[in-house]
């Protein structure tokens, strides 16, 4: 990856819509709700936003970014939609970051939106390839990922169920979470079986929602805040061939994206104060933590049970409740993570506030592609 000189970029405004089953709203209403919240958050006059990247995975409408932006008075400027499955929102934030960092824009907005209740066929996300025909689905893959980890490291399903317990507890403290209910380990393990041993409560729910983030070049930040949250790194790597997969719980794109992002930010995983990562399935969280080098391979399950990744733990993971408690409107999640981390770094995260959070890492990974280990992994890092 080529290094290029970049201006410093800050996150000045964030916002999200309500997350949940909201079929009456649709893509434009959800996106507008999030953008208005972000605009209100920083008090910007919309016409000062130079451009918009809109992330969206499912929908049959063209120029979605334009349809949303016009609702907040944004026309006649640079705009485009991006799609990168679960990493779509992360990609939109990245594009805005680079547009500002390279001097193309001074201020930009990233919005991610998906309306799964209205734009997606029912049933698990399945690729249209030979494996999809043979019954492979995302939950099936998650279940096997968990099984491989358990097999190699002597872990049990309990540790993975505990991911769900932790994240639902965090979600209960989050006014934005789709599900604010606390669940016990027994309830998670005893929920309806989806793909053995993954239960219903270990799968992120179908949800509609949007999130928006407004980023700003250093020399204009003072107009909006005296305590900016800087975006200091971004990485995005697509999946390698399945043929070269080491194992199902090891994501080489996750490892590479993490290493690149840390190098760009000038940090190591030991410096991280708070993490929002991709937990579409409770199966994903522990392997993703290890992909990010936050702990050694095979140690994540034990550390999780010891509370290491709890809200008041050494490295809180998914203080928002993650995708498990928030729901996962695909393209919104990556932007929602930036909103969440920004709130923590500003000290505005309410009951779920991670104390003295200075460095936050947002990780999203997903996408189903025949012959590849996955679609993409994207990481964005914010710092106070």
């Amino acid at each position, binding site marked *: 990856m080529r290094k290029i000189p970049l201006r410093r970029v800050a996150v000045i405004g964030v916002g999200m819509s309500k997350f949940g089953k909201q079929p009456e709203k649709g893509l434009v209403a959800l996106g507008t709700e999030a953008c208005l919240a972000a605009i209100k958050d920083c008090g910007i006059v919309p016409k000062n936003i130079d451009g918009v990247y809109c992330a969206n995975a499912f929908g049959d409408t063209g120029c979605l970014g334009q349809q949303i932006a016009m609702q907040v008075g944004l026309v006649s400027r640079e705009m485009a939609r991006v799609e990168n499955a679960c990493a779509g929102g992360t990609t939109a934030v990245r594009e805005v970051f680079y547009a500002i960092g390279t001097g193309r824009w001074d201020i930009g907005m990233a919005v991610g939106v998906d309306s799964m209740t209205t734009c997606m066929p029912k*049933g698990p996300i399945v690729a249209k390839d030979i494996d999809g025909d*043979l*019954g492979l*689905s995302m939950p*099936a893959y998650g279940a096997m990922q968990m*099984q491989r980890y358990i097999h190699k490291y002597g872990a049990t399903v309990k540790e993975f169920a505990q991911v769900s317990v932790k994240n639902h507890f965090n979600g209960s403290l989050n006014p934005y979470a789709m599900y604010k209910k606390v669940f016990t380990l027994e309830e998670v393990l005893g929920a309806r079986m989806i793909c*053995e041993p993954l239960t219903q409560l270990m799968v992120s729910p179908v949800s509609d929602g949007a999130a928006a983030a407004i980023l700003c070049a250093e020399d204009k930040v003072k107009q909006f805040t005296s305590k900016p949250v800087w975006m200091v790194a971004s990485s995005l790597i697509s999946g390698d*061939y399945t*043929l070269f*997969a080491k194992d199902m719980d090891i994501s080489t794109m996750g490892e590479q994206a993490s290493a690149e992002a840390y190098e760009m930010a000038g940090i190591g995983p030991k410096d991280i104060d708070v993490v929002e990562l991709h937990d579409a399935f409770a199966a994903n969280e522990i392997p993703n933590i290890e992909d990010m080098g936050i702990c050694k391979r095979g140690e994540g399950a034990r550390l999780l049970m010891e509370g290491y990744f709890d809200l008041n733990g050494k490295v809180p993971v998914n203080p928002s409740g993650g995708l498990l408690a928030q729901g996962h409107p695909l393209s919104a999640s990556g932007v929602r993570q930036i909103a969440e981390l920004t709130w923590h770094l500003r000290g505005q995260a309410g009951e779920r506030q991670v104390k003295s959070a200075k460095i936050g890492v947002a990780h999203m990974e997903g996408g189903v592609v025949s012959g590849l280990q996955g679609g993409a992994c994207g990481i964005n890092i914010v710092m106070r």
Partner: protein
Amino acid sequence: MAKVPLRENLFTEKIDGTLKYYKCKSCKHLLPPLTVTCQYCFSNDLEPMPLGKRGKLFAFTTNNLDSAHFKAPFTTGYIEFPEGFRLFSVLEKVEGKPFKIGLEMEMVIQKLWDKGEDEVIGYKFRPV
């Protein structure tokens, strides 16, 4: 009522024969069925080879959601071949031989589902 393969180019000449895998003539690496371009050196000069029927169970799960072609509950998993690649497949139970990682599995070629008037022929794996 004709027999059609799960995918074109999946089997050797006979549809009920066995799967084809590939050896790259340029770099000599072994490649899974349905490969068109060598993922090591990007050559298209691939030599077809008959795939053995045995492999080891790498991972598996029992699905409680119907898929397009299979009704729940059905078990699927990855089979690891000595040639170095893994295939995803539906698994068949055998009484007294519960699935576990590392279990020796053998391929069976059979009808997977009907496609209109035709029978779609593919593979499943079951414990040896």
